[in-house]
């Protein structure tokens, strides 16, 4: 009887934990600038961006894409840009009792402050890292045209 009771309790624990994950009707943007596309296609046209931490309502799914809405912006985002974890950004202050991972998501840990201190050490040269990041950022249709010109037919082209 004790064994049966323990088994039932374990099932309830597992079930309740699973239910919490399965009912995620909202997700958070986990990249600096989440790309919201017109259609669920990797080379699709961009309709807007959402910043890191933005919450989106999930309306549906197609392959690796989620159909999302955030305010007046609606479209499709790739799953790699979204997380079910909540990202709390409150001007640097975070509620108490959070885990290390939640603190890391909220911007604690390795962040711009740490980079600024590391830069000052002289061990690294960020000049071309900054240039790399801010140039040659091609959108889906430009890359699609490049691919087609080269006779490439991947990615739904």
């Amino acid at each position, binding site marked *: 009887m004790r064994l049966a009771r323990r088994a039932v*309790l374990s099932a309830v624990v597992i079930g309740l934990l699973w239910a919490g994950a399965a009912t995620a009707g909202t997700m958070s943007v986990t990249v600096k600038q989440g790309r919201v596309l017109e259609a669920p296609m*990797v080379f699709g046209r961009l309709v807007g961006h959402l910043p*890191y931490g933005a919450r989106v309502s999930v309306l549906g799914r197609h392959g690796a894409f989620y159909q999302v809405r955030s305010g007046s912006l609606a479209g499709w985002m790739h799953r790699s840009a979204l997380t079910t974890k909540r990202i709390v950004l409150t001007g640097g202050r975070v509620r108490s009792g959070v885990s290390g*991972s939640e603190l890391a998501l909220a911007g604690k840990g*390795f962040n711009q402050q740490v980079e600024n201190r590391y830069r000052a050490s002289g061990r690294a040269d960020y000049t071309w890292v900054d240039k790399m990041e801010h140039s040659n950022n091609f959108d889906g249709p430009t890359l699609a045209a490049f691919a087609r010109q080269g006779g*490439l037919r991947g990615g739904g*082209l």
Partner: protein
Amino acid sequence: MRGLALKTAAALAGLLLLAAWPAAAGLIDTIPGVGSVGEIRRRVQQVQRVAGAAQRATAEITPRQEYYIGRAVAATILKQYRPWDHPAANAYVNKVGQCLALVSDVPQTFGGYHFLVLDSPEINAFAAPGGFILVSRGLLACCGSEDELAAVLAHEISHVQLKHGLGAIKKSRLVDLGRLLIREGVREVGSARLNQLTRVFGRSVGDITKTLMISGYSRAQETEADRAAVKLLRRMGYQPAALISMLQKMKARYPKTKVGFAKTHPDPLERVRAVRSAVGAAGFHPPAVRVQRFQNALSEG
């Protein structure tokens, strides 16, 4: 005994259904044979607290932290290598690389994928976490076509997506980071704590650059990246045999002593053997249009 097992199974099925239907679960306050809902809730919270404590001991590297680590790794490498300031070549390499990234399982990292050519005759490439990928002119000179360039970039993208660089960070750094995060908690980071964080950061970056520039990845990791690269090439429409062609050219230039890429990579023919079955029997016949635009983009003029 059998009757008890059947009753237990029925209770489990019912409870799982209830657990997935929170509204219904709110209608009951006692589960027969188990206890009150309040007692169950307390037990669940206890399980979560124990799981959370174990997780907190080691910090997770989030995509955002991976981005800052990657920037620092790339910046550390760029302290030793000069970039090739050739706008057309860099734009072209970025187009090839970003196409491959788009058809991968992780088309977006926190800060995106960015590629830069290094002005060095060494045959080498470095994949920093988060998608900062550096390839040398020496390596580009081994490529005779866009497909071979794509094979190189697909391999480096795969190292990023398989987290091989992050895997080089010693576990003790992550434990230190976890402790610092928990100690800091809700407070703004003071100067002393910032110094400690930066120290852990610097040591983590050092672990990765040492792997990229001195010890190299394991044979298993190189094979894993090669196999993942073949998938990316196929998805984009490039010829997978370009990877074999590239490895054979690298073999022709493989130095007898452990310098350059020989220091950080296994013998190219070993890699060919490991990836041959994934590539298949088809030979490599690069389309003229992709050979031509490759040559045009990377010419010195």
